[in-house]
């Protein structure tokens, strides 16, 4: 019976989890900013 080696699990985890967590932290921190600080374009 073959199993996926630990090194492969590490590659799969490292290619996804840290970047997802970093983006989540960025999203939560920056979403809380004062809406007035957002730069607004003229939609015309």
């Amino acid at each position, binding site marked *: *019976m*073959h*199993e*996926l*080696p630990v*090194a*492969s699990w*590490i*590659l*799969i985890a*490292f*290619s*996804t989890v840290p*970047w*997802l967590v*970093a*983006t*989540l932290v*960025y*999203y939560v921190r*920056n*979403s809380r*900013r004062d*809406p007035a*600080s*957002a*730069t*607004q*374009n*003229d*939609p*015309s």
Partner: protein
Amino acid sequence: MVDPVIVSVLVLYLAVLFGIGFWARTQSKTIKGYFLAGKSLPSWVIAFSSNATGESAWLLLGLTGMGYLVGVHAFWIVLGEVFGVTMAWLYVARPFKAQTDRFDSITVPDYLEARFKDERNLFRKLAAVIIFSMVAFYTAAQLTAAGKAFDIFLGTGYLNGVFIGAAIVMFYTAVGGFKAVAYSDLLQGLLMLSCLLVLPVVGIVAAGGWPAMIDNLGAQDPFLLTPMGSEGLSVKGIVAILGFMGIGLAFLGAPQLLARFMSARNDRELVRASLPAVVCIIVFDAGAILSGMAGRALFPDLGDHESVLPVMSQALFHPVFTGIFLVVILAAMMSTIDSLLILASSTLIRDVLQKTLGSKAPDSRLATYGKLTTLLLGSAAVALAVTEAKVIFWFVLFAWSGLACAFAPPVLCALFWQRTTRQGALAGMAGGFIVTVAWAAFFKAGFYDLYEMIPGFAAGLLLTVVVSLRTGTTREPAAVGAART
């Protein structure tokens, strides 16, 4: 005999695209409207448009095929792409948006010209050469794939398939402009996301579940389960990994992706877009590779590993879903073609006609010229796809690299390094592009097939830095500071 269910699904999809083009037409009457949707797009549209533009049919056919061919080893591509997308959204998007709004830029050469006070339009001229040469073949390669997909699923014949695919994209792009492109990208991205969520799950279940699939793959070839693949830690193995990871560098500064950041309604929409964009790219890439691995367990003797997705869709799903999978493949191609046509069209109208040749034509007439240019460029790509059938997949990765290596290094330095000079940015742009082309043409075979993105990107960065250090005293504040205010 063509399945009427598949045809119905396809016709429905194409009708929706026509509808989007028609709906978006009101905002395509000025050049800012036609080329950037008036900088008014919301977060979800930007997030999906960015990923759908970056990932062409290569994702669905090429990357699934890579999962089939090398198994877990292909996850190095996921690492490179997810890293690239994350860095782009966390560090590039908002500073770039702030700078381009400040300069009222519509194109990337617009930004570079304003940032470096380039009165001789050298950035625009160089960018035009690079964009036209890369976009022509990139688009033709996608149309070639579209022609083959129509032919395989509907029996239209290759040439008719190319014409049908091109006509649809050219219609909604020319009529609706960037807004139609972006919203059709949203639809196309959602279709791709759904496909790559469902296919690996169904494939793994059909293969007997995760343990059975892994056991099956290990019995076929133990290297399918190892991260280093069959080459291990040899030079060839390391070079392969670098090449896999290098694919993701383009997300940091390919011009067709930077245009998405510029088109955002405001800074907050970019923040909101970051999370769906990163989740989406993870599902895209991991889903494609896991689908390929499941396909290998189910169909170990495929003659063409890049046919694994069509084969799985036909073997595992009802014809309605087979039709949807055809639509998804076409969606992946179309979402890239439309963005490339708009990119090349904006370069010709804004950078060449208006800014370099000094056309005084009113805004509305320039937008009309933009539409005509879109049709003209699309027709040229059709001619190339029809006459040069060899223009296929490998060129997608080459053109992806050529565009990224020319634009990403000077743009990143312009944003984050105060001492970047005009001469440095020009050298980096020209050098990144030339090294990419020269590497692919002359050196690649002698260096274990190292993907041209690595030397091209490195050359672009190195030349920008070295020439800037030797030439300049420019102290323009970097955009990152402005973005934090």
